[in-house]
């Protein structure tokens, strides 16, 4: 590692258990981030800053004025631009030592399967169940870790699904009813809560990639920001899961 990189990442290299080895692992890692909204914004910012070697950023949307209350990757001047464009600009300014690959497209199941097979971890911050189930299926097929978070209103959830460790998958826990999720445009969402949950996605991704600590494997962290109640649930494989069984 060059001196500049050592200096840039020195404060996390100092973290006990992370060390130079953890930083080397991050620099050699590839992460796919689905959705550059309220969750994908803080997650990608922190993973870029931490030095994850390659970030693949997927979103087919353009920046809207109503996004800016929580989607901190994007600024007022970005309204109307593809989110992938403003994300690339912001993240490159933060860390020009990592590779950024942007995909301004809605990922089909086939495309997801191709992409997921090329990365070490997937972070899902999408805004609909159809995408979430497709991302999960691709992670199960490729046996790749999935850090999944979701937020609506004042409720947040995050779980780490480890098909690579024979853990339960997203579909083991959440039924595919074909129903559309409540959207932030209908129900509202507290901006800082997306920041908390997206940042936790980055924390878990760094832990999984570097080998630091005990990730939230096979657990679901449920947050009620209204009362600041946090609960951690155990997840199990569904013996009848149509995806991972």
């Amino acid at each position: 590692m060059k001196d500049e990189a050592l200096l840039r990442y020195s404060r996390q290299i100092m973290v006990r258990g992370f060390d130079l080895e953890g930083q080397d692992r991050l620099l050699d890692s590839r992460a796919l981030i689905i959705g550059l909204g309220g969750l994908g914004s803080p997650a990608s910012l922190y993973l870029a800053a931490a030095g994850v070697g390659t970030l693949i950023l997927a979103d087919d949307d353009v920046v809207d004025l109503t996004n800016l209350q929580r989607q901190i990757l994007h600024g007022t001047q970005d309204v109307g631009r593809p989110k992938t464009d403003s994300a690339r600009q912001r993240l490159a300014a933060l860390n020009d030592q990592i590779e950024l690959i942007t995909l301004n497209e809605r990922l089909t199941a086939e495309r997801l399967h191709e992409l997921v097979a090329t990365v070490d971890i997937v972070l899902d911050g999408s805004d609909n169940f159809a995408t979430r189930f497709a991302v999960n299926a691709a992670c199960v097929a490729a046996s790749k870790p999935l850090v999944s978070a979701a937020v609506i209103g004042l409720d947040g959830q995050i779980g780490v699904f480890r098909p690579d460790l024979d853990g339960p998958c997203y579909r083991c826990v959440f039924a595919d009813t074909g129903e559309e999720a409540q959207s932030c445009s209908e129900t509202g969402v507290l901006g800082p809560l997306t920041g908390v949950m997206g940042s936790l996605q980055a924390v878990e991704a760094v832990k999984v990639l570097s080998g630091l600590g005990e990730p939230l494997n096979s657990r679901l962290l449920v947050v009620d920001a209204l009362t600041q109640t946090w609960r951690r649930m155990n997840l199990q494989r569904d013996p009848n899961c149509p995806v991972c069984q």
Partner: protein
Amino acid sequence: MTPIIITLPAALQSLADDQAQLRLNAQTVNEAFVQIAQEHDLLAKRILTRGGQLRPFVNVFLDEQDIRHLNGLETPLDGYQEMTIVASVAGG
């Protein structure tokens, strides 16, 4: 009868007079929901179908365990302190 604390997500608290937690005494998960329905009918309808089954987008945990991996709605509450309602969320 076992005393149990029911913890609700923020999205459902308005259906329970803005309470984040309910306290009641019941033998099983199902009995707890029957009691909830008596005082908070709209809340119960968001959790259970008309046929009295758990809605597929709702997960119920006793302490840290999903009741689907216990005995479902018939799971006895004895030995547990808290029942947490978790609704599927997909916002990002």
